[in-house]
């Protein structure tokens, strides 16, 4: 047993490293991000080439290329990232691999940090690649190693599908050693296998279908699928985190735990079903296994009792078994006063440079097509200045569409972060210029992929290991796309930001405003002299509260209304924006504050 607990993501990184990978890439996305970060920490640079890619499709293409040259490759992304890589993924099974290739898809049931909760087991089946589904950190470690072996043995990419709870939960594990593999032997030409012209692709498709037929036999005997026969009254087919919740809630039930979600071991399922009186499938999200079992002509229950949305927590599993009549209703816990807690949604950090562009957009009453990143939080009160959010990079295209259809009297603006802009915004910007759309694109450049915890991207000059790398220049990219009006502004300068955005929205055609200011939290926490409220000057006008800064709160001890505000010095980053918003000049740097004011204040 390890002396410390590893998260599922750390276990995957360790497992992949021990499986002998020499290349790893991906795009950050919760809950997948920590895999590459941990891998970069535990592996010497000479062993594994780890780097973030511009987007998931690029990452997969890099991985396929490396696999064709004989390297073992890990590529990581979140569930919706797989959609971006889908074009390459769908045909990757036709090409096959030489070195093992494992695609990690981290799904997010319950949408803790995502815009949907799609079930990527279907994606694996759709692409015709084996799908491995670990239930805890030990399995994450073991399954990723097994997936590399299967990938090479069957000449196929494999998918390792986790969920938030398997990726982020920590449990102990026993690990082996790194497999020493011979160095990649170089690329061998094989156009009929690697060049997917229609003539070749037709042949490869037939090869692929035939291979999947043979893989069914492999699935029947894979040790990753295991029967646990206990009570004959009820048998549960389950996978992933749901397995542990079934064991927790209904420990006497017989269980068929499927570690491989595709291809399925049909005979094993039939044999298991024959041994139990009542067969129930307990699976998170879609009735993927249930439909497959029913297709085999076996009587089965599942989504009749368990929800199709959200996480399948132990309490949800318990409720399902209660409804199915397999568990007595648990006596409700002694009544506790209903918690009077109000909502506490995530908010932009104190000093977040994304705040002011949205204040300016709200003042202009602009129609704002938003995008994916921390700044999506500007959709909530009090800033409330974002009108749409669909998918990575969608803001620019949606803004073009809105302006083509016409939004009379309101400027149409797309807001997009630097990492998202490089990920999927650039093609949309080229399109916008070509169409001569009347849109303004505000690129919120904080020099990092912030929402996922601060990962570098190809627009900054550092890599995942902190090494210096060449970078793409966002302003030059915009100019090269044909944008004539590109303005760079410091978002901490409220007046300049307002002016730049107002002028840009007044122009015909595509205009770009790049707001440039490093993220306050990463890669380093930036802290200036903190600000304070001179209580005798604050009249409670609440202008600063419109910023939604968590460091600014009411002085509830004063007992007046509108309430006076004060600033929590331990949270303030010294960004100065609230001081610029205050009409009474009541907010000053601690260095400017005169002692008399401190004495007069209620602080």
């Amino acid at each position: 047993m390890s002396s410390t607990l590893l998260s599922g993501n750390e276990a995957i990184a360790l497992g992949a490293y021990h499986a002998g990978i020499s290349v790893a890439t991906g795009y950050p996305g919760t809950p997948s991000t920590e895999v590459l970060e941990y891998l970069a920490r535990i592996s010497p640079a000479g062993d594994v080439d780890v780097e973030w890619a511009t987007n998931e499709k690029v990452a997969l293409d890099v991985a396929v290329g490396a696999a064709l040259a004989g390297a073992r490759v890990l590529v990581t992304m979140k569930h919706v990232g797989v959609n971006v890589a889908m074009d390459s993924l769908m045909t990757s099974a036709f090409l096959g691999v030489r070195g093992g290739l494992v695609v990690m898809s981290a799904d997010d049931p319950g949408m803790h940090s995502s815009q949907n909760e799609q079930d990527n087991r279907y994606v694996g089946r759709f692409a015709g690649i084996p799908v491995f589904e670990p239930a805890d950190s030990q399995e994450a470690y073991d399954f990723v190693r097994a997936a590399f072996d299967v990938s090479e043995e069957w000449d196929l990419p494999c998918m390792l599908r986790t969920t938030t709870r398997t990726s982020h939960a920590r449990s102990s594990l026993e690990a082996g050693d790194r497999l020493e593999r011979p160095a990649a032997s170089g690329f061998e030409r094989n156009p009929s296998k690697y060049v997917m012209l229609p003539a070749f692709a037709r042949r490869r498709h037939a090869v692929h279908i035939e291979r999947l037929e043979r893989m069914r036999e492999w699935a029947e005997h894979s040790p990753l699928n295991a029967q646990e026969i206990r009570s004959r009254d009820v048998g549960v087919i389950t996978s992933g985190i749901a397995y542990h919740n079934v064991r927790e809630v209904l420990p006497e039930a017989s269980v068929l735990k499927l570690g491989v979600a595709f291809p399925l071991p049909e005979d094993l399922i039939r044999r298991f079903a024959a041994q139990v009186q009542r067969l129930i499938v307990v699976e998170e999200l879609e009735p993927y296994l249930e439909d497959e079992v029913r297709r085999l002509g076996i009587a089965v229950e599942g989504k009749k009792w368990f929800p199709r949305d959200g996480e399948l927590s132990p309490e949800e599993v318990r409720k399902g078994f209660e409804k199915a009549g397999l568990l007595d209703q648990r006596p409700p816990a002694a009544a506790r006063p209903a918690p009077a807690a109000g909502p506490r949604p995530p908010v932009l950090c104190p000093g977040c440079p994304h705040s002011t562009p949205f204040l300016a957009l709200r003042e202009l009453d602009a129609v704002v097509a938003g995008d994916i990143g921390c700044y999506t939080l500007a959709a909530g009160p009090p800033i409330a200045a974002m009108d749409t959010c669909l998918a990575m990079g969608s803001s620019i295209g949606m803004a073009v569409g809105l302006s083509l259809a016409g939004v009379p009297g309101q400027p149409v603006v797309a807001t997009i972060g630097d990492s998202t802009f490089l990920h999927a915004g650039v093609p949309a910007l080229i399109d916008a210029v070509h169409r001569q759309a009347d849109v303004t694109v505000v690129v919120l450049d904080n020099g990092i992929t912030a929402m996922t915890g601060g990962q570098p991207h190809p627009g900054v000059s550092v890599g995942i290991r902190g090494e210096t790398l060449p970078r793409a220049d966002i302003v030059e990219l915009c100019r090269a796309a044909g944008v004539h009006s590109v303005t760079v502004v410091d978002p901490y300068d409220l007046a300049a930001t307002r002016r730049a955005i107002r002028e840009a929205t007044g122009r015909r055609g595509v205009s770009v405003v790049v707001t440039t200011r490093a993220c306050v939290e990463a890669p380093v926490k930036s802290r200036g002299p903190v600000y304070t409220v001179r209580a005798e000057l604050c009249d409670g006008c609440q202008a600063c509260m419109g910023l939604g800064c968590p460091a600014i709160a009411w002085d509830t001890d004063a007992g007046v209304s509108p309430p006076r505000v004060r600033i929590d010095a331990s949270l303030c980053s010294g960004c100065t924006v609230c001081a610029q918003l205050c009409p009474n000049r009541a907010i000053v740097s601690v260095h400017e504050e005169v002692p008399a004011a401190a004495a007069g204040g209620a602080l």
Partner: protein
Amino acid sequence: MSARTAEPTSEKEASPVSGNIVVAGVGGQGVIMASNVIAQVLLDAGFDVKKSEVHGMSQRGGTVVSHVRFGHDVHSVTVEPGTADWVVAFEWEEGLRALPYLADEGVAFVSTERRLPPASMSDHRGGALAYPAADASPRGVVAIDTAAVAGDAAATRAAVAQTVLLGAVAARLPFPAEAWHTAIRSWVPPKTVEENITAFERGRAHKPASPTRLRQAPVVARPPALVSIEAAWCKGCNICVAVCPERCLELDRFDVAVFAHPERCTGCQLCSWLCPDLAIDVSYQAQEEHVHAAAGPR
């Protein structure tokens, strides 16, 4: 001792055979670090341990809940409502939010620290705070003024105060203080080890007194200010409409500014100051006296 325990032994306290701990707080408070410390102590004591929390968006000042489960063979990674032996909450409101996790005989150690979420302060005019006041602690809750208990240990870094809560839990668990010290050393930033251990020891020695009262002064509302606009002087430049923090003003169909939402007005006078034509007057004289009377000596 509320965890499921083995038969009493000669030891001072019976060793738990399994248990559930929920650590709750606000993103950035160190919830995950604290649950790592707890998990480390349990792991070193020879238990199977699983720990789960959600990273990502909840770190941006939102609610963070970490689940720690221990026993001989732990399956689920999350704690079912009504089954937590201990709740450790770094913030008052988050403690209340986590209470449904608590088992009947469970104990919740809740810091009286308040982190007002911006959403709780959206009544800009009335000043009604949407935050649970606490005149008395709910059943099972031990409220601890962590900042007071930590004292000078948290002088440099306010977050250290929450380590007091780890001490409070440690006092109820049969593991030696050294095991906790070792775990704290391995998880907190090296620079903060000593102050964290001091705060931990103060929490371990702390004898919770009667339920702590949380201060919350009554809110005294004042009537809305009156914004009068001289229509003849207004040229419809829209400045006041754009700058009003509460969006009280609108242009009518003649492009004249009107005071459309008096119920939102906080009387800040920004419109009056910025009107280039001096067309706006904000009056709230009667309220000044009201406010001073209400505020009293400060």
